[in-house]
């Protein structure tokens, strides 16, 4: 369970990233955070694994305030919270397999990992997760030989190999085309349902948010302006969150083109 209590974040340059945020995210939920760029979605997500540090309030994960975490405590929090990025953030020159194994780093001693001495179980787990996202045949390809959608699937496998309790995804489909976007979201949703991993996704596409979320949180200027189940959301809700009428580019487009799971 993640609890934001009066959480605020002011960046050194004076920008207000978060403003008095009060949100509770329950275990197993699939939450989509929507808002325009600069609304604080990224800050919200990055506070949870402390890539940024809120300046005021409390942030409880499994009933522990994480804001004071440092060193090994912070690292063990981060092994528990996996993250998926807009630009996949793979090591482009390394193989797919090595990238996925990197998910085990937090669970592996520094010495062992530097000499690539991962246990048999770790390797099997990494392979298993590559299979889950249907990309196991690219095992020994270099990451930069893969298409964007394939790279994002590898990064999902990497997060799974981390065995997290929570997955954060920061605009995971912003660099992808519509069919691949749906594919990636479907994998995320499937993992959420099968493994019960709490998943928090930043999106700015309204239709995708509606299709995959259990619950939507709307943000504007660092504040939470909407929080409720998808059933309560309508077009007016989005217009309220965005502070303007809905446009074409707020929509990702149809899922229909998505026939094949492999590309």
């Amino acid at each position, binding site marked *: 369970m993640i609890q934001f209590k009066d959480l605020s974040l002011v960046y050194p340059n004076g920008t207000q990233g978060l403003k008095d945020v009060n949100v509770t995210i329950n275990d197993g939920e699939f939450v989509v955070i929507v808002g325009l760029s600069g609304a604080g979605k990224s800050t919200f997500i990055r506070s949870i*694994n402390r*890539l940024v540090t809120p300046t005021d309030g409390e942030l409880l994960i499994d009933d522990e305030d994480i804001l004071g975490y440092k060193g090994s405590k912070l*690292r*063990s*929090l*981060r*092994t*528990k*919270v*996996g*993250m998926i*990025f807009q*630009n*996949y*953030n*793979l*090591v*482009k*020159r*390394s193989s797919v397999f*090595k990238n996925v194994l*990197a*998910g085990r*780093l*937090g*669970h*592996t001693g*520094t010495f062992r*990992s*530097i000499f690539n001495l991962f246990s048999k179980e770790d390797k099997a787990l990494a392979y298993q997760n590559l299979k889950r996202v249907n990309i196991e045949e690219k095992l020994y390809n270099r990451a930069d030989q893969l298409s964007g959608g394939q790279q994002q699937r590898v*990064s999902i496998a*990497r*997060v799974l190999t*981390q065995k997290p309790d929570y997955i954060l995804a920061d605009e995971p489909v912003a660099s992808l085309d519509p069919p691949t976007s749906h594919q990636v979201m479907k994998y995320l949703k499937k993992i959420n349902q099968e493994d019960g991993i709490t998943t928090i996704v930043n999106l700015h596409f309204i239709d995708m948010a509606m299709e995959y979320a259990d619950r939507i949180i709307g943000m504007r200027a660092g504040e939470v302006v909407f929080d409720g189940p998808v059933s309560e959301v309508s077009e007016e809700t989005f217009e309220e969150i965005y502070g303007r009428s809905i446009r074409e580019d707020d929509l990702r487009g149809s899922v229909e083109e998505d026939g094949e799971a492999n590309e």
Partner: protein
Amino acid sequence: MKKMVKQMNKPSIQEDRYAPMLSPWRVKGKITLIFFLIIGLLFFSSMQTGVDLQALISGLSNMNQIFVKLFPPDPGIVNLAMDRLIETIHMAIIASTFATIVVIPVSLLAARNLATNLFVYNITRFILNILRTIPDVVLAVIFVGLFGIGVFGGIVALFVFSLGILAKLISETVESIDMDSFEAMRASGASSVQAIAFAVVPQVLPQFTSFSLYVFEINIRASVVIGLVGAGGIGNLLMQQFSFYNYDAVMMIILIIFAVVVVIEYISGKIREAII
């Protein structure tokens, strides 16, 4: 026909009057000023160093002295020179090896994108900048002074000298990498050392290998040179023969050095091409 074209392209004088000047007088003035500055400095420097046209001409006419004094090269020195040459190469190998090992932590400290402590970063940079201004020979003089005449002082001097160059090259490479994957490692709970090993190392490894070979090339030359000041190897032999006025032997040694430098740079260059 060709003539026609030529004429058409040459603007007549009348047209030219209305055309904008290619370079306005201010730019022209500036260029003239710089030109005279360069020439003036040249004359001044020539005077100070006692070089004038006369010296140049008499110097050049002395060039035939090369043949008189330096030829034929003395083949008697070859065996001794080869022994000392191998010593020189060994010095370069050892110094380059230690420099490539030590440069890893140093270049990480001197890379802005990985610097967690700005104070340490600035100090490292400062020391490296000073180090790079000191010529190899001067370093050799100092370390030979510290450790005595011989190979050891030379190796230390080469090590320090090449560390300065290598650290700059590698830290700049580290600064140019894609930090996204590093962020991902940190976000998955990896320690800094792990994140560096998995995200930074694969990205810099090809350049690292190439630069290490490049530094080995530099060290081969430098190890010849520092021998002149007592740091062992073939340079030492060269200096001995030079101070005994054995110019035929000097020429032979120089030819050997030349051949080795060319061969090693060629091989190393080919390997570097294959890597990147």
